[in-house]
């Protein structure tokens, strides 16, 4: 009961606050914009042919209703929430009557496949290598590794991705330049399709793994080297606890807690897609959809993706916070 009141309820409130703030920002920003989406669409339609003024007026009214721009700002805001709660993000403006949610759902499997795989791979690799490098921090190998990681991980991601494309798709073309699978292949459980997906996904996944693994590695190494020097490890060694037990049961378990938070946030951000990755590698996921939305000036689509990514990341953080008492006994008793 105490745990519920002191711990769970504040976390739930925070979750609601984050979503509220995110959605409100997504509502306010386009309304501050100098660009008028309705006028934009009208201009685009006017390109296709001359229109009568009455037709333009009735079209404007229809568009305002569609984009939720009718009534006072407050009424718009209430209507906005009502639509969101029923999962309706409105129609996409660039691919007109198609609902935003449908476009997102089409792209989501690609993004989830790419990001979940690479996030988990990076997390596991970073922790295993980081722990070893933290424990044997005097060895030559771990020093070389650390220098390498230190020179790679701060590089802006875009530049890293661009370099990989240049090297492995352009100069030495072992991987395809673009796409999620070979053109013309239908999604199926055949070997041709799966191998094509793997081949196309390798380079983007690799770039993501390199960048995010660096951070996991460095933080895990720092955590481990503090833990190695702490009293309980010294006692365990004096008490002749096998080194393997110290390593796996004491060191990794203790350092996993902060790392679990990072993993949850990483997985939560999957819904935002990897914008740059998907743009550089032309991967057909959420990031690519967002990119198209940017270039086409598709407000509804952009808003849908941003709201989804706010909800995704907030929920990821919430879940890990709620699981924390299970992982960390100290939080339970505090």
């Amino acid at each position, binding site marked *: 009961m105490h745990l519920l009141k002191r711990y769970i309820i504040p976390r739930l409130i925070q979750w609601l606050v984050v979503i509220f703030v995110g959605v409100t920002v997504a509502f306010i920003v386009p309304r501050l914009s100098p660009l008028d989406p309705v006028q934009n669409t009208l201009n685009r339609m006017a390109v296709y042919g001359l229109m009568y003024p009455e037709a333009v007026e009735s079209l404007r009214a229809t568009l305002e209703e569609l984009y939720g721009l009718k009534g006072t700002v407050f009424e718009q805001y209430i209507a906005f929430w009502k639509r969101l709660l029923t999962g309706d993000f409105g129609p996409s403006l660039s691919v007109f009557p198609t609902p935003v949610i449908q476009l997102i759902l089409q792209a989501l499997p690609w993004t989830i496949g790419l990001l979940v795989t690479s996030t988990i791979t990076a997390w596991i690799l970073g922790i295993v290598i980081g722990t070893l490098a933290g424990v044997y921090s005097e060895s030559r190998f771990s020093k070389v590794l650390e220098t390498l990681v230190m020179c790679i991980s701060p590089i*802006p991601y875009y530049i890293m991705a661009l370099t990989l494309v240049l090297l492995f798709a352009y100069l030495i073309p072992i991987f395809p330049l673009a796409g999620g699978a070979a053109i013309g292949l239908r999604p199926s459980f055949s070997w041709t399709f799966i191998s094509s997906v793997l081949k196309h996904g390798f380079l983007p996944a690799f770039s993501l793994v390199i960048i995010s693994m660096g951070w996991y590695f460095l933080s895990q190494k720092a955590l481990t080297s503090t833990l190695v020097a702490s009293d309980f490890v010294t006692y365990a060694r004096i008490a002749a606890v096998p080194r393997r037990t110290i390593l796996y049961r004491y060191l990794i378990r203790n350092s996993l807690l902060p790392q679990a938070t990072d993993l949850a946030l990483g997985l939560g951000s999957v819904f935002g897609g990897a914008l740059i990755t998907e743009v550089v590698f032309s991967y057909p996921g959420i990031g690519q959809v967002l990119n198209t939305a940017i270039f086409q000036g598709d407000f509804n689509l952009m808003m849908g993706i941003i709201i989804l990514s706010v909800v995704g990341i907030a929920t990821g953080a919430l879940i890990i916070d709620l699981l924390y008492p299970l992982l960390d006994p100290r939080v339970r008793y505090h």
Partner: protein
Amino acid sequence: MEVLRDLLRYDRRFLIGFIITVLVLLVFPLSLLSPYEPTARRVVPTNLPPSWEYPLGTNALGQDIAWNLIFAVRNTLIIGLLSALLSRMIATFNGLISGYIGGVTDRVLSTITDSLIVLPRLPILVFLSFVMRGQLSIWGIALILAFLDWAWPSKRYRSQVLSLREREFTETALFSGMSTFSVVTREHLPFLVPYIMADVISGFIWAMGMEITLSVLGLTSLSIPTIGTMIYWANYYQAILRGIWWWIGPPVVVAIATVIAFYLLSVSLSEFLDPRTRLQRIKVRPEMG
């Protein structure tokens, strides 16, 4: 000064970082010597490879790449430094208040901070700059970046202050009649300064990465040279496919070198400041072998 000398002498990472940083900072005086306006186009013949007259060649827009690069690096540095300084100022203020005063103030401020931490920054940034497309000056970008990057450092500073508050000298200061404001600024802030310095650098690296990301997507004002817009125009004119390597190469190389240099400085500084790793350096750590 003594610290600087020691670091230069004993830490090779610091030395390398320091040299590159000094070289990079040279762009500030150099940019004043440029014969061209920063945004000028069609002032030299197009697409010439590097030569004595044009050390880094010229691009398809008729710009001298060497001078263009100097302006670009200068502007990117301004964006990065301004955003890092501003965000750390907000963070310091918020962290000190929240950590020292505690109670309801702390709970409200912490909720805001925690909420900002989990907001996905890139999509929001993309959204904001899309809405203000083309009207974002380098100052505008720096402001927006600063606003999105204060939450994490603020949380860290707060936890530092929480532990400082429990120390005896806080009590002593209070009993001798110092006001809250001077306890925080005169007693606690000096402890935080080193952390903040190392942290400003990581803020800079983040801001620089974001500037490049936004510019590459074409979301900043593209006529102002920055590292990001240089890459944007090189991509726009298909520099890679046309083999104009001297256009896309320099910004990429300079970006990587700057970031690594700053990162080495930050790692070396924070290790120097952290008593735990200082113990490790002088080898009093128990061996796990």
